[in-house]
């Protein structure tokens, strides 16, 4: 596979880096303290058509291929320091991909244009208080009654949940069946009777991102809001994880590239015992490991995104990609804090925020432990 950047990819990357530095360079600490979502930045990103990139033009999208979308998110992760905002944008794109891949024409026409314009905020609701990595052991039920499903249960930690206008809800529709045929996806809108949203939950990182609980109490959802077919939920979940495990690592890899740049600069400028600290192997080795992991990460990310862009299956590649890049990011952030010493521990240098944000990357979209399990299964274990 040849991963030389095309002219189009170069333009997108350069444009997004320039845009981020000009328009997204706000005081993140102040937004974190306010507890508010950075709506102004969200709208600017929507105007930049970041949310519209991979979707067909007839639904308001840009019709850009998936690998180019991944390159662009990589640039956003590099140039935008607000990982919470970038995660919210990525979640929106992922919800759009689910609708584009599995929704009927009516659902696509109804939701994709407003998703692309960022006018409506989308979330996907899978995780529950009693089921995280074992997502398909969910208990939220959707019982079919006539032409509607009656939805009961609750979801938690849902990204974009507290501010969501539209939620793709995964629920059990056939409890007697094994998970593979017993789960379905329903599209629920804010304002529907029986649907309510909790307040944003406080977190150690990704502070500007809004995560929260969603509650369904006899919420009536008409059958025309079924995404895909009845019983297709587990397969939609599997499929969407492959896309998600390319999109999120693209962002993480961009963040790693920024961390590397900051660390190299500091290691050259900071002196100790008469020479730049980068001359000491203990420091240089940390930096060389960052560089090595970035280059290795690019290989698996581009391969994965290229496969998905050609509608090929990539569950193993996606798990390796997610596991390797998220763990590498966490290690890079830890090393960057160490290289910067006391300054790294101070909020002013902003590396501590990257470290706090990076912890979540090894948890969401399937923990590192789950990725190991998936990889092992593909090895026949």
């Amino acid at each position: 596979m040849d991963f030389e950047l095309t002219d189009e990819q170069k333009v997108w990357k350069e444009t997004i880096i320039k845009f981020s530095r000009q328009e997204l360079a706000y005081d993140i600490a102040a937004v974190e303290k306010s507890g508010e979502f950075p709506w102004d930045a969200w709208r600017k990103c929507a105007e930049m058509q970041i949310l519209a990139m991979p979707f067909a033009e007839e639904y308001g999208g840009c019709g850009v291929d998936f690998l180019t979308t991944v390159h662009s998110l990589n640039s956003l992760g590099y140039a935008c320091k607000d990982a919470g905002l970038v995660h919210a944008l990525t979640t929106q794109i992922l919800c759009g991909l689910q609708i584009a891949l599995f929704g009927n024409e009516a659902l696509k026409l109804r939701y994709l244009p407003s998703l692309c314009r960022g006018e409506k905020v989308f979330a996907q609701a899978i995780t529950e208080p009693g089921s995280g990595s074992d997502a398909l052991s969910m208990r939220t039920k959707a019982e079919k009654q006539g032409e509607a499903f009656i939805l009961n249960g609750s979801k938690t930690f849902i990204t974009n949940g507290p501010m969501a206008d539209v939620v793709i809800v995964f629920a059990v529709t056939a409890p007697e069946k094994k998970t593979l045929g017993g789960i379905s996806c329903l599209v629920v809108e804010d304002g529907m009777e029986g649907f309510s949203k909790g307040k944003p939950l406080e977190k150690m990182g990704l502070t500007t991102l809004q995560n929260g609980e969603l509650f369904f109490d006899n919420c009536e959802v008409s059958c025309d809001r079924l995404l895909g077919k009845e019983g297709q939920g587990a397969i939609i979940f599997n499929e969407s994880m492959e896309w998600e495990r390319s999109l999120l690592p693209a962002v993480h890899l961009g963040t790693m590239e920024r961390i590397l740049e900051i660390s190299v600069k500091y290691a050259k400028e900071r002196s100790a015992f008469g020479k730049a600290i980068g001359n000491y192997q203990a420091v240089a080795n940390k930096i060389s490991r960052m560089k090595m992991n970035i280059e290795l990460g690019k290989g698996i990310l581009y391969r994965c995104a290229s496969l998905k862009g050609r509608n090929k299956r990539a569950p193993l590649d996606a798990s390796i990609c997610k596991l390797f890049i998220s763990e590498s990011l966490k290690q890079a952030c830890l090393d960057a804090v160490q290289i910067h010493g006391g300054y790294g521990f101070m909020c002013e240098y902003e590396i501590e925020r990257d470290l706090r944000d990076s912890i979540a990357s090894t948890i969401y979209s399937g923990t590192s432990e789950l990725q190991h399990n998936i990889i092992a299964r593909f090895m026949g274990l």
Partner: protein
Amino acid sequence: MPTREKIRQFIMNELVADGSGSELSDTVLLIDSGVIDSLGIMSLLGFLEENFSIQISGEDLVPDNFATISTISDFVAQKSL
């Protein structure tokens, strides 16, 4: 080797949890009996696409198509037309 036997062999070797040699008939309910679970279906789809040069997406990705060796075999035949 006929399609049906190729599929059977893959499931026996890769998806039967304990690797036991007991035969799988054409009509054993693979999902309901737990032979194919949510991770197993990913392996199976990859195997089918690679070995029979077919692409499986969208509406084809329904559990009914993968319920038994017989339905999988019929599905592959239909996709190969």
